[in-house]
């Protein structure tokens, strides 16, 4: 027998009910099932089962986020060099800086989030749900790089407790927990979540007169603004800052940690659409919705930006690919997914066009549609039942 298995079997009784560490049962179980697929056999119903489980689904989702994660490491460093004129920084300096910025974000979200997950599983006597692996991976990718860690910790705790556990855990929540954390940050600490200085490592500190770590002289390059494309949402504004469709698409621009690169996001999208982990219907209809409203706005004169720019600016693509498609909080019916996705895309661009004070509409568009998803499903199902009731009898 596998020696690791032997060890696990040896210490298992300690963690079982009545054992010395029985109160840590859920924790032990989480680690055991992480390493070994349990020996549980089917008891009721079907005697055979497909080998896919929620752990597999979740790990694929995490894998899909990895390109955006890697790109963000590089981009954090790259934006920093632009801001402080660090022309002598090579690739490894840039990546090193990115890692030093991003690792603390991940440590905070995973430690705080998983601690709460484990504790609540412990209290309820449940197994630990895997859902947080994805939430915890997404969350650092949608916040500004310089977000104070304590704020991130508070927001994570809020999202996991109020957003998820009070409803009963993964699968029962109404809103996407990662977005809920971001919304919490946005409304509680707006000064750290918006403005031109929030999106590039060290900029906030330098603007206040301090010298940020690893920034050379600590002097911001003359004329550097750090403003995101969304904050300059006109063709002139974009051109003034040197943004064109190509760098918006590649993603070497300021923005929330992982949302900037359309290429990296699309790589992830291919994986989750192919494996069926996320709904392509939501993605397609969301993009259609965004394009349509962007086009109507363009024609109607609300903006001079062609509609396809809307897709690569801000968090549109990241939101529609990774968060609008969250299977728990999106519409459940196939027909409902078309409607839901379309409205997410449409509302996002609508907010962008008509609310310059709050340029990024994606977060609220998804949270709003999360709220309405059950309603969409309700009407889809009612209609289907009515159609079924009208169906003719074929036998004579």
């Amino acid at each position, binding site marked *: 027998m596998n020696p690791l298995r032997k060890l696990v079997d040896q210490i298992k009784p300690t963690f079982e009910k009545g054992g010395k560490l029985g109160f840590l049962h859920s924790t032990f179980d989480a680690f055991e099932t992480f390493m070994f*697929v349990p020996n549980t*056999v089917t008891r009721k119903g079907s005697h055979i089962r497909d080998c896919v489980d929620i752990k597999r689904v979740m790990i694929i989702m995490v894998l899909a986020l990895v390109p955006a994660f890697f790109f963000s490491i590089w981009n954090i460093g790259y934006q920093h060099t632009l801001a402080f004129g660090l022309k002598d920084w090579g690739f490894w300096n840039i990546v090193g800086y990115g890692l030093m910025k991003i690792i603390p974000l991940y440590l905070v979200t995973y430690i705080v989030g998983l601690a709460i997950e484990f504790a609540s599983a412990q209290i309820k006597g449940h197994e630990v749900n895997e859902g947080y692996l994805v939430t915890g991976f997404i969350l650092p990718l949608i916040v500004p790089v310089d977000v104070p860690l304590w704020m991130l910790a508070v927001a994570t705790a809020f999202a996991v407790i109020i957003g998820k556990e009070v409803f*009963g855990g993964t699968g029962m929540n109404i809103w996407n927990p990662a977005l809920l954390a971001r919304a919490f940050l946005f409304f509680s600490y707006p000064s750290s979540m918006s403005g031109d200085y929030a999106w590039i490592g060290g900029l906030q500190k330098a603007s206040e007169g301090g010298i940020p770590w690893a920034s050379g002289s600590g002097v911001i390059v003359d004329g550097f603004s750090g403003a995101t494309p969304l904050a300059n949402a006109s063709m002139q504004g974009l051109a003034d800052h040197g943004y064109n469709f190509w760098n918006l698409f590649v993603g070497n621009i300021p923005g929330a940690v992982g949302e900037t690169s359309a290429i990296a996001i699309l790589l992830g999208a291919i994986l989750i659409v192919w494996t069926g982990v996320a709904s392509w219907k939501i993605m397609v209809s969301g993009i259609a919705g965004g394009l349509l409203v962007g086009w109507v706005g363009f024609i109607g004169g609300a903006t001079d930006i062609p509609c396809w720019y809307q897709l690569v600016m801000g968090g549109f693509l990241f939101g529609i690919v990774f968060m609008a498609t969250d299977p728990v909080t999106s519409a459940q019916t196939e027909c409902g997914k078309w409607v839901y996705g379309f409205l997410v895309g449409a509302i996002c661009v609508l907010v962008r066009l008509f609310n310059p004070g709050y340029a990024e509409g994606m977060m609220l568009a998804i949270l709003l549609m999360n709220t309405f998803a059950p309603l969409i499903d309700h009407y889809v199902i009612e209609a289907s039942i009515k159609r079924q009731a009208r169906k003719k009898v074929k036998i004579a």
Partner: protein
Amino acid sequence: MSNNIRLKKGLDIPVAGKAALQCERTVIGDLVAVSGCEFRALVPRLLVKEGDSVLCGTPVLADKKRPEILFTSPVSGTVKAVVRGEKRKLIEVQIQTDGRQAAIDFGKKDVNALSAEEVKDALLKSGLWPSFVQRPYGIIAHPDDTPDAIFVSAFSTAPLAADIDFCCKDEVKFIQAGVDAVRKLSAKGVVVSYRKDGKSPLEKLENVQKFYFEGKHPAGNVGVQIHHLRPIRKGDVVWTITPMMLAAIGKLFLTGKVDLMRKVAVSGPAALYPAYINTVPGVKMSQLQDFFGTQTQSVRIISGDLLSGKTVGFEGSLGFKDNQVSLILEGNDYEMFGWAKPIRMSQFSTSKTYFSWLTPWKKYEMDTNLHGGERAFVVSDVYGKVLPMNLFPVYLAKACLAGDIEKMEKYGILEVLEEDLALCEFVCPSKIDIQAIISDGIDLMLKEMA
């Protein structure tokens, strides 16, 4: 109106152990059981005592609530034991066989000359009445009802299911007689569904309405067929019956005897030589030792198919309507980093998160491992892909869990039995016991209706 129906959704599970199309042995053994346990909501009443001698067709049990419904012996011999479980629940009546298969003579009859009442009477007295399953709810049909139609599926798509063409090829004459008899009991006669482009010997049947289905499992489930031919709404009653039980009914009228002998597929990944045998319902699984050899402890013995069959164990027996025994190894071992392995070639998954789709020809040696822990409903569109019915299975399951009768009816509890949703359970990444949930839902409906 077209009689061809194409179902796009479904799944044929590639499990190894299909029974070879040969049937060389007759297995009955010295002990055969008559049991009421497999019938939903049935409380049986005992009609014999230990030491009584019985013939094929002698009443052994009756339905306590509807005493005209009898369960008769499939063999001749003497009653050896009455086995009871907790709270004296009647588990089974064991009959010591004498090997003669002597039968009560119910008298040969000309089916075409019989009235509906006479058919009904003959089926009740001979113990063949429990062959009729009522939809909704899957209980034994009520003799006072007149169903709108009687549905028969002439093909089976369940994993490793017995090949109905093979089992029925010598029985067409009897099945025709059975059809002629039972069609008098329903308003619209008998409806038979065939596999499209199949070469079923039953296509010769007359006096039936014929429909042709195309698609993967569960296209062969009679419940799915009814959903497409005649959706069941509140207040509707239809019946279903299997071709094999029709053959038994035909034999009753043509020979005057109860003869439940049938071909049964002994299949499954743990079957040493998967093949067919001739046997009767109630045969003890211990008689099939040849098929699983010495692995008695580690093999699960199932009467029925791998999706919806009942675990009966070594001492258990074949169900009244079953024509399949499935043998499968218990998967009670740990698999290190199973879910985290990039490639897991020995396991089957419909999900593209694994790579089974690369090897569509491969048959898998499946076991009973659950392959994960139970979770809440997370992934939303997996059930729909394998259910060729216009239903919302997650909503139906949630209504059942909540015990909300109104919603259960709305979401289609009248149209389904456990077996129709079995594939949803197979593919569920959250490992939710859908069939058990539906079963509890149906029980609740029955309780509320009573």
